[in-house]
């Protein structure tokens, strides 16, 4: 049975759409005085911000601003020199990425975040936490032990793939897909991990316009349902449509935090992006 066509969503700007997120809710992520130094280079300099549940926040800035390093430090891939990363009131600063992931903080990659010689379906199933058969004794017990639980997850993965327009690719190796399709697989995989929050590192970078719009629609759908997002992205149009708020970084420092429409007119933001014009 073929997939039913997905009605295209018309992205709207942050000003036009209703505010997402739970107003007044305690932040799900609180970054406090985060600093990352590589030798003498300060990649992230005393950055602090909070993200409320159900909110999409963009981390923007020119190349070399420290956005990706900040994202890596939050996700555990880079050890911060100082500062704290509270996720659900647990300080994850300096903890490895798998600990952050087990708390529900799932990161996607700018490049090469896929499992190339696993099929699309396997890429999604591998992210399911605590699936029966993931322990050695569960595995040795055989398919009778884990088969039914896996089948339920296969159905969930099929639904995710249908909505990402990848249902017809489920048995293909991910290495055989285009760059944009791989990014969609990564988003699908992140969803299978049952995230509380997604950290997205340039999800639309290097992707053709059509697929970039598809990725944006998928992320919009997630945001509208209340999933918390923190994304690094250079495409400011996408950031404006997708994010409730943006944090601007330049030379490792956080220089602004607010609605992108308001920030456009601020001199320090213009200077950072346009070199002082």
């Amino acid at each position: 049975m073929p997939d039913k066509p997905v009605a295209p969503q018309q992205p709207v700007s942050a000003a036009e759409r209703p505010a997402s997120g739970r107003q007044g809710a305690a932040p799900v992520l609180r970054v406090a005085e985060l600093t990352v130094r590589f030798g003498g280079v300060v990649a992230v300099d005393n950055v602090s911000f909070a993200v409320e549940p159900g909110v999409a926040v963009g981390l923007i800035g020119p190349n070399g601003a420290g956005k990706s390093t900040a994202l890596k430090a939050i996700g555990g891939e880079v050890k911060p020199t100082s500062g704290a990363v509270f996720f659900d009131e647990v300080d994850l600063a300096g903890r490895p990425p798998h600990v952050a992931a087990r708390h529900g903080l799932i990161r996607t990659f700018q490049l090469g975040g896929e499992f190339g010689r696993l099929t699309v379906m396997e890429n999604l199933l591998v992210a399911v936490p605590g699936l029966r058969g993931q322990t050695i004794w569960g595995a040795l017990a055989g398919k009778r032990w884990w088969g039914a639980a896996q089948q339920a997850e296969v159905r969930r993965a099929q639904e995710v793939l249908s909505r990402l327009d990848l249902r017809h690719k489920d048995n293909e190796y991910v290495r055989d897909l285009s760059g944009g399709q791989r990014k969609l697989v990564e988003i699908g995989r992140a969803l299978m991990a049952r995230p509380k929050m997604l950290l997205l590192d340039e999800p639309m970078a290097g992707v053709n316009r059509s697929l970039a719009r598809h990725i944006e629609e998928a992320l919009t759908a997630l945001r509208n349902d209340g999933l918390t997002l923190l994304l690094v992205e250079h495409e400011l149009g996408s950031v404006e449509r997708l994010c409730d708020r943006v944090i601007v970084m330049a030379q490792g420092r956080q220089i602004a935090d607010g609605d992108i429409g308001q920030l456009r007119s601020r001199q320090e933001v213009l200077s950072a992006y346009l070199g002082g014009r």
Partner: protein
Amino acid sequence: MDYYLLTMCVYVVVGIVACWGLNLQFGEAGVLNFAYIVFVAAGAYTTSLLSLGPHTSASYQHYFWGTTLPWPLPWLAAGVVGGVLGLLVGLLVLRRLRGDYQAMVLLVVSMMCTYLVSADPGLLNGGIGLSDIPAPYKNLLHTGQVGYEVFYLGLSILAALVVFEALRRLNASPLGRTLRAVRENEQAAEAIGYNIAAMKLLVMVIGGAVAAVAGAIEVEFIGAWAPAGWTYPETFGLFAAVIVGGRGNLGGVAVGAFLVQGLFLEGTVLLPHIGSPQVIGAIQWMSLAALILLFLWFRPQGVIPERRRRFGEIEAGSLDGALPAQALARAGRGSRA
């Protein structure tokens, strides 16, 4: 001829079991265990010590401890020792080093172990090695040499079937899929919640146990074990079998073990003598290296490639027709939220 064929069959079974353990580490999880032969040796020495009986002052060979246990206890104990050794080596190597450095350290570990055992004659009889290791139930069965070899081949195949079934279940399970994900992209696997060092430690333990069982089978068949038989290049012979057969595929690896361990290495023995007797050995290793290179260049997936795991056709999902936002959210909604 029967005797020769039976001997070759046992060797091939040993090679297949050893390659299955290496396949779990290298083919499934991507761990380059260049010390793999040490685990085979650990199994062989454990079985020897548990079969030879206590060391006496009158004994012509020296070893630090010994006893006599009935089959299959020495083989099982070998598996346990191989697993524990895998844990210890894994803890040493896997936690703080990246993959390429892990491989280098493991190669060094392999060389250190060979030198250590060779250097201390009181440990495991030094470079001469242990001999006269009794075969299980040989004195009780009055079958003649060929009859006993058939019996021993049966024991070997039995052990191989147990190992095969355990590894088949593991490969087919969600755990097997996780190991393949670790092989493909450690960083991405960690980002979805897997502790990479723990996953690799697991395959070091299981693979080490399987390697040790292979060593146990081999040593009770040939009745002797010495450091010259487990130098580090032996590991590359096993790697060659896994690469040629098809990493990640148990059937392919068995074919690879048969082709490389059985036909290819044995075939070079049949070459006419050229110059010094060492030349044949050198040709053996050079041709093995060439075989690895040829497969890595022209058929890296091996003779029988890893099987693609296919899942069922489209099932009528309960969410068909739902709006993308609702559908994605429902599909992605998690127990954590």
